[in-house]
C-alpha cells in the first residue's frame, strides 16, 4: 500500500504541475483565485496526502494521519464556497488530480498488472473520499450562510414603531408563518410593555395573502396583547384580502379592522382622548398644533 505514498512523494513536483495543468483546463475561474494561491494549496494538500497515506493508509480516511489533510481540504472548500465557486468546481479541484496520478502509477507499475490495478483502485477510493469531504464542507458552509441570512431576515422584518405616546404600529411585510408569528408576537408584546402603549396597530399591507393560518396567527397575537391590557387594530386590509377573509369564513368580529393605517391611527388617537385639528395659522407653519390633547 505504501507504493502509493512512495510514488506521490518521489514525484511531487511533477504531479503538482500536471495537476494544476489538468485543473486549469477543467475549471477556469482565474477571476476568483490567483495562480500562486492554487499552487500553494496544491503543494500543501500533496504533502498532507503523502503523510496520510504513510501513517494511516489509503483506506481509512478517519485515521489520525488524515487529520491535517481533512482540515486543509475543509478550509479550502469553505473559503471557496464563500468566494462563489460552484460545488462542481470545488470537487473538480480534487478529482482533477486523478489523471496525473493514474498516469504516473501506470508508468511506475507497468510490469505488474495486479499491483497496478490495486494501486489505482485504492487511489480512486482515496480521491473520491477526499472530493466528498470538499462537497460536504461546501454544502455545510452554504447552509450556515443561508441559516444566518434567514435569521437576519427574521429580525429585519419585524420593526415596531412608535406613532404617538401610547400608540405603536407594527408593519408586517411578507408571509406570516409560525416562526415569524412567534417573533412578531414577542417583539410587539415586549414593545407594548417597554413603551406602556395602550394601542397597537398591526398593518398587514405587506402581507401578500391571508389564509386561515395567517388569520389564526394574527388572532393569537391580538389575544395576547389584549391579555396584557393593550388593544390591537388591524389596518391595511386590501379589498382582495377582505373578500378572502369573508369567503374563508374567518371570524374577525371581535377585532377592529381598518382599510388604511391612517384610519387606524385616527381611531387610536380618538380612543386615547386626542383629536386632530387644523392649525388656524394656515400653511405658514403646517406642523405646529397639528395634534392637541382634547380638554375634558
Amino acid at each position, binding site marked *: 500500500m505504501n507504493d502509493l505514498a512512495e510514488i506521490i512523494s518521489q514525484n511531487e513536483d511533477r504531479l503538482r504541475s500536471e495537476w494544476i495543468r489538468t485543473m486549469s483546463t477543467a475549471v477556469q475561474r482565474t477571476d476568483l483565485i490567483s495562480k500562486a494561491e492554487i499552487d500553494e494549496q496544491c503543494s500543501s494538500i500533496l504533502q498532507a496526502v503523502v503523510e496520510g497515506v504513510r501513517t494511516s493508509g489509503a483506506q481509512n480516511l478517519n485515521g489520525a494521519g488524515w487529520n491535517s489533510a481533512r482540515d486543509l481540504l475543509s478550509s479550502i472548500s469553505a473559503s471557496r464556497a464563500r468566494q462563489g465557486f460552484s460545488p462542481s468546481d470545488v470537487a473538480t479541484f480534487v478529482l482533477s488530480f486523478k489523471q496525473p496520478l493514474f498516469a504516473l502509477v501506470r508508468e511506475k507499475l507497468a510490469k505488474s498488472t495486479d499491483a497496478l490495478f490495486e494501486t489505482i483502485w485504492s487511489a480512486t477510493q482515496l480521491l473520491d473520499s477526499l472530493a466528498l469531504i470538499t462537497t460536504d464542507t461546501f454544502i455545510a458552509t452554504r447552509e450556515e450562510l443561508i441559516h444566518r441570512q434567514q435569521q437576519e431576515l427574521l429580525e429585519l422584518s419585524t420593526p415596531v414603531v412608535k406613532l404617538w405616546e401610547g400608540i405603536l404600529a407594527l408593519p408586517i411585510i411578507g408571509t406570516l408563518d409560525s416562526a415569524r408569528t412567534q417573533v412578531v408576537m414577542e417583539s410587539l408584546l415586549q414593545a407594548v410593555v417597554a413603551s*406602556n402603549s395602550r394601542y397597537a396597530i398591526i398593518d398587514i399591507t405587506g402581507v401578500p395573502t391571508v389564509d386561515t393560518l395567517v388569520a389564526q396567527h394574527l388572532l393569537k397575537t391580538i389575544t*395576547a396583547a389584549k*391579555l396584557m391590557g393593550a388593544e390591537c387594530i388591524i389596518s391595511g386590509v386590501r379589498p382582495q384580502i377582505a373578500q378572502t377573509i369573508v369567503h374563508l369564513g374567518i371570524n374577525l368580529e371581535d377585532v377592529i379592522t381598518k382599510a388604511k393605517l391612517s384610519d387606524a391611527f385616527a381611531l387610536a388617537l380618538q380612543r386615547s382622548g386626542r383629536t386632530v385639528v387644523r392649525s388656524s395659522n394656515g400653511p405658514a407653519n403646517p406642523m405646529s398644533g397639528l395634534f392637541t390633547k382634547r380638554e375634558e
Partner: protein
Amino acid sequence: MERIPVLRMGPLLLITIQVDMHDKLALQLQDDVTEKISEWGSTGVLIDISSLEIVDSFIGRMLANIAAMSRVLGAETVVVGMQPAVAITLVELGMSLPGVRTALSVEAGMELLYGAITDGTENERSEA
C-alpha cells in the same frame, strides 16, 4: 401558611401576586377574594400579576374564575401587568380569559376600575 395579601383601597381590592402561584395558593386566594368582597362590599378588584412569570392552565382558569365570581358579587375585576411570556403561554393554551378586563399598569387598571364603578353611580364614589 403562605398567603397572598388582599388589600383594601376604598371601594377596591388590591391583590399583588409576588410569589410563584401554586394550586393551593390560588384556591386560597379565590376564597379570600370572595370573602373580602362580601365583607367590605368592594366594587372593584385589581390583580397585579407583573411579577408572575410562570403560568399554567389552572392559574389561568383561576384568574377567569375570580373575575366571574367577583362579577356575581357585584365587583369588576381588572388583571394588570401581564408579562409577554405569560400572555403568549395563555394564548397557546387556548385561554383568552374572556370576561376579564386587562390593563398595562396598576395606574391604568385603577383608572379603568374607577371609570367602571362611577358609571351611573357617581354618588357611591363620593360616599367612599
